[in-house]
Structures are given as structure tokens and as C-alpha cells.
């Protein structure tokens, strides 16, 4: 297993593995929507599942994985997204900051959606 050999390779493997957690959350969302489509009882059953401590732990794990994905994704984008202004190139740290700012904005908007529609 070449990807166990060095720290850099193991981090690469971890990065790729985060996609599993993304798919897992898609499944959770799908169950959420399915409950919604089935009626009040089914939906509220799903909400009760969300409240269980086991689910919270699972969500924390998924969140950690997706945040790792986001971090590596932004770093990657800074490497490969070359913004040229004539002959000048936007430095990588600025690109990452821009992406993080956008991420904060989007997260804020979604939070607004939930907390005050």
C-alpha cells in the first residue's frame, strides 16, 4: 500500500476518504427529505433520530471530515486556480482567504435560512 508509506501520502488518502463522509451525509439528507414526503409522523420520527447522542457523534465525525475536505480543497484550488492580472499573479494566500471569506458568507446565509426564514 504505497499510500501508507509517508505522512504526505497518508494525508492524501485521508483527503480522498472524506468523500465517503460526504456521501454518508447525502444519505442522511435523503432520509430527511423522505421523512418529510411521508408526512408529519415520519418526519418527526426522523427529528427524534437526529436528537439521539449517537447521531450527534456521527455528525461530529462527518463535520470533521468535511471540514478537512474543505481545507484541502481550498488549498488545492489556490495551487491550480491562477488568477492573472496582466503579468501579475494573485498570490496563493489571497486566493485561500477569498475562498474562506466566501465560505463564511455562504454558511452565514444558510444559518439565516434555518434560524430566521
Amino acid at each position, binding site marked *: 500500500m504505497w499510500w501508507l508509506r509517508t505522512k504526505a501520502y497518508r494525508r492524501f488518502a485521508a483527503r480522498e476518504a472524506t468523500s465517503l463522509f460526504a456521501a454518508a451525509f447525502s444519505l442522511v439528507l435523503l432520509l430527511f427529505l423522505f421523512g418529510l414526503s411521508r408526512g408529519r409522523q415520519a418526519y418527526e420520527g426522523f427529528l427524534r433520530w437526529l436528537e439521539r447522542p449517537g447521531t450527534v457523534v456521527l455528525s461530529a465525525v462527518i463535520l470533521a471530515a468535511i471540514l478537512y475536505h474543505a481545507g484541502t480543497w481550498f488549498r488545492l484550488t489556490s495551487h491550480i486556480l491562477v488568477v492573472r492580472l496582466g503579468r501579475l499573479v494573485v498570490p496563493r494566500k489571497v486566493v485561500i482567504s477569498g475562498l474562506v471569506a466566501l465560505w463564511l458568507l455562504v454558511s452565514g446565509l*444558510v444559518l439565516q435560512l434555518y434560524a430566521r*426564514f
Partner: protein
Amino acid sequence: MQERRKETGGISLDDALGASEKWDFEPKKKKPELYLTIPPKELVFWALFSAGGMVTAFLIPIHVAILGIAFAAGWLPDDALSYERVLDFARHPLAKIYLGILVVMPLYHWAHRFRYAVHHQLGVHGWKRLVATFCYGTATLGTALTVWILLRI
């Protein structure tokens, strides 16, 4: 040049140079110019993976934090996830598109990464068609399910 050719016994300098490097790699002309308007499969898969990665990075964390942790911890307003409120939101066509993207894009992101992880990290060298069909097939199945459920809301 002419005299030298006779001296070396028939082969010209150009022929000798030409023979030393065989450039026999021609671009494959099997597909007609039409090819340029139909994207290659790999491009589609990669574009979906890329878009999926963007959605996963920007949108998913906050949703996980809210649905998975904040709700159970009681940090949301009491009626934030009430049946009426969420149903009201989800019935809006734009909301359905948003929810569709939220569910489906990470699936295609997973499909592409998992497909190559199986080949390059788990060392499965053959079964290329099977692995690809399983991965993108699962994602497509997920898409179909999502559309069906969203239409029922």
C-alpha cells in the same frame, strides 16, 4: 552533398537522420470533427466531481453543523425545523432545486474519488467498467431517488 552521398554508398544525410527517430504517433483520426461538440466521458465525470467538491466544501459543513449538532443541542429556535415550516420551504420550486443539488453533487464527488481509490489505492487493476458503473450508477440512483422524493413533497 551529392559527392558525399556517393561516397557513403547510397544513403543521404537526411535519410539517416530520418531513420534514427521514428515519429509514428499520429493523432487518432477515428472520430470526426463532431467529437469536439460531444464532451469525452472523462471530462463529464471530472466536471461533476469538481462541482461536487465545491458544493461539499461550501455548503455541506454548515448543514451538518446545524442538522447534526445544533438541532440536538437545542441551539436553534423552537420552530426552526417544525413540520409546517420545513414543508412550506421545501414546496418552493427553487428550494427543491437547492435541496437537489445539496444531496446529489456530493454523491458524484464521492463516485469519482471512490472509483479511482479502488483502482489506485486498493490495487484493483482490472474490472474498470464494473467499478465505474457501480460508482456512477450509485450516484445516478441517488439522483433518481432524490428527484422522486422531491417531487412527492
